[in-house]
């Protein structure tokens, strides 16, 4: 177990290091992406440009810049934004994290419940009327652009109907869980639903496929031969086994979403989460913030990978001993 953890931690470090170096090179070395020119503005003279370069340390050799940036990010934790001089990177990311986590975990729960219901019912009643009906809904779910669906949700709840049917929907924004749990949920309700449409669609399709594969296995017939109920057969035997590959993929997707892929929903619903922060920093080419958010994303991806591996081993004894 100790060696397992050590190996995981080591590979996590390698991934974090590689990602940060690639991001660094991408934004510092690519011609045209000159951070100093961005900061100094369009009409800057060469002299101001040089001054800006110097004061931001951009005239130093690249490895030095990289090391200094990492030092400010991890050790002194006082890395400041290029664009907004007062803003510190680390506290900003830390402040944005609960918003993204709230968004992603709510979505995860809703979409998993819906996907389990759709996938299970479809697989068990394969070929009957409900199956194509539910799967058509799932296809629709994966075919609609998330940000567009979010805009429609806004149109409905914030537009003309806001004064009548949807008067209970609060304006866009975020209220912390600790401040008021009811308002927190109310603010996140439509973002959750919007994102869940996609993920429920994806996972009901995945789950249906896995369930059909599993229901065709011999151990299902063997279990039926034991005289157990069909309900037990579906849940304890088929669903339990179909869950193994589904969880692996699901964990990965959660990692990706927490890592910043939820940004479209965050932008549409005005949620100041990490995705939003990443998007802003990318747009303004705010290098310290980009480095911070990219490393944050890589960290969550690596973390979720590790959790997926552990859960996978819990769920599947064959992996545990491999």
């Amino acid at each position, binding site marked *: 177990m100790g060696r397992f953890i050590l190996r995981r931690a080591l590979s996590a470090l390698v991934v974090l290091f590689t990602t940060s170096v690639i991001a660094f090179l991408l934004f510092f070395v690519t011609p045209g992406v000159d951070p100093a020119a961005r900061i100094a503005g369009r009409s800057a003279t060469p002299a101001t440009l040089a001054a800006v370069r110097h004061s931001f340390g951009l005239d130093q050799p690249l490895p030095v810049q990289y090391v200094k940036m990492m030092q400010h990010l991890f050790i002194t934790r006082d890395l400041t934004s290029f664009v907004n001089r007062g803003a510190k990177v680390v506290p900003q990311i830390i402040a944005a994290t609960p918003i993204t986590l709230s968004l992603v975990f709510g979505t995860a729960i809703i979409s998993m419940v819906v996907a389990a219901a759709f996938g299970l019912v479809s697989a068990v009643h394969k*070929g009957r009327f409900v199956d194509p009906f539910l799967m058509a809904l799932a296809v629709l779910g994966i075919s609609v652009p998330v940000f567009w669906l979010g805009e429609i949700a806004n149109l409905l709840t914030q537009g003309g109907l806001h004064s009548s049917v949807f008067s209970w929907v609060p304006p866009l924004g975020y209220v912390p869980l600790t401040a008021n749990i009811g308002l927190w949920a109310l603010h996140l309700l439509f973002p959750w639903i919007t994102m869940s449409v996609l993920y429920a669609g994806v996972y009901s399709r995945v789950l249906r496929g896995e369930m059909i594969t599993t*229901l065709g*296995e*011999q*151990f299902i*017939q*063997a*279990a*039926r*031969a*034991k*005289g*157990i*109920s*069909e309900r037990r057969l579906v849940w304890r*035997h088929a669903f*339990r*086994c179909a869950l*193994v590959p589904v969880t692996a993929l699901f964990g990965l997707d959660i990692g990706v979403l927490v890592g910043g892929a939820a940004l479209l929903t965050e932008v549409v619903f005005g949620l100041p989460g990490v995705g939003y922060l990443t998007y802003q920093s990318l747009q303004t080419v705010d290098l310290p913030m980009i480095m911070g958010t990219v490393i944050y994303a890589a960290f969550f991806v690596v973390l979720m990978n590790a959790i997926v591996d552990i859960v996978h081993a819990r*769920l*599947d*004894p*064959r992996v545990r*001993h491999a």
Partner: protein
Amino acid sequence: MPDTMQATARAVGADVALRVESLTIDIRTKSGVAHIVQDVSFTVAKGEFVGIVGESGSGKSMTLMNLLRLIDNPNLNVSGHVWFDGEDLLALPAKRLREIRGGKIAMIFQDAMTALTPVYTVGWHIAEQLRAHRALSRRAARERAIELLTEVGIPSPELRVDSFPHELSGGMRQRAVIAMALACDPKVLLADEPTTALDVTTQAQILDLIRRLRTVHGSAVVFVTHDIGVISDSADSILVMYAGRVVEQGRTVDVLAAPQHPYTQGLLGSIPTPGASRLTSQLVSIDGSAPTPSEQVVGCAFRPRCAYAFDKCFTVPALRPREGQADDHLDACWLQRQAQMDLRIEAGS
């Protein structure tokens, strides 16, 4: 004649464990209806060991699986009767059928690896079987599971009870599956090629185990195999299946001593006899391959491969007894007895 008396007793009798009457299985596919099993009838007496022999695709496994309606496929159409304890299993409501599955009639499968849900331990499987039919606490079920594992000869059962299927060897897994099947002392044990996936020495051990436990638990056994050699000394009676039909059935001694159907003769001829001199005995192989269910052969399905086929073979022969053979020794072949005799002389010389 004692044989006749026993046959009558079987047909009417109190001694019958399971009676299958004209079981027919069709499957609808895109290209039409395929007949997988046609008009199969047999009787299993209490405690009897019945062997069903046939090539792969002969419908023997489908027959066995459908006795308990294990295959949940809307395109499958099963007709006929499976009488057990005065009830027709094919017409039984699902709830009542569940009480019989595993409780009164249990099943073991070809590959124990694929027959056990991979995420649960051996002990969990046995406990599930027990608790499906007996009111037992978890603890009691676990203790009983250890006893059963001991009974089937698994070393250190109190450790093995917590093993996952993939951690056991093939032979051990099959023993565990047998322990599971026998957990509720079933009246009938259905075995679907339980030794095929194992190596030869393990095969013999598993077969021994099934034979021994049969006497201990008093279960009848229906044993499906493609290898007639496996059951020739265990089975009380034998059914030979070819392309979905029974071509010959009877008491094992009768069938082995005087096989009537050319296919049975071919099967027996393809088994090497230990000690036989190479000069006098020759292994016979049957030319060609068996038709698949979608390839319908007109008349007797064996006709295209049969060396003795003649015009009559274009109609399907019925299963019937022959003169000079036991009354319960049936075969489905048009060849006259005389011709058969000649044939055997020819083959022997």
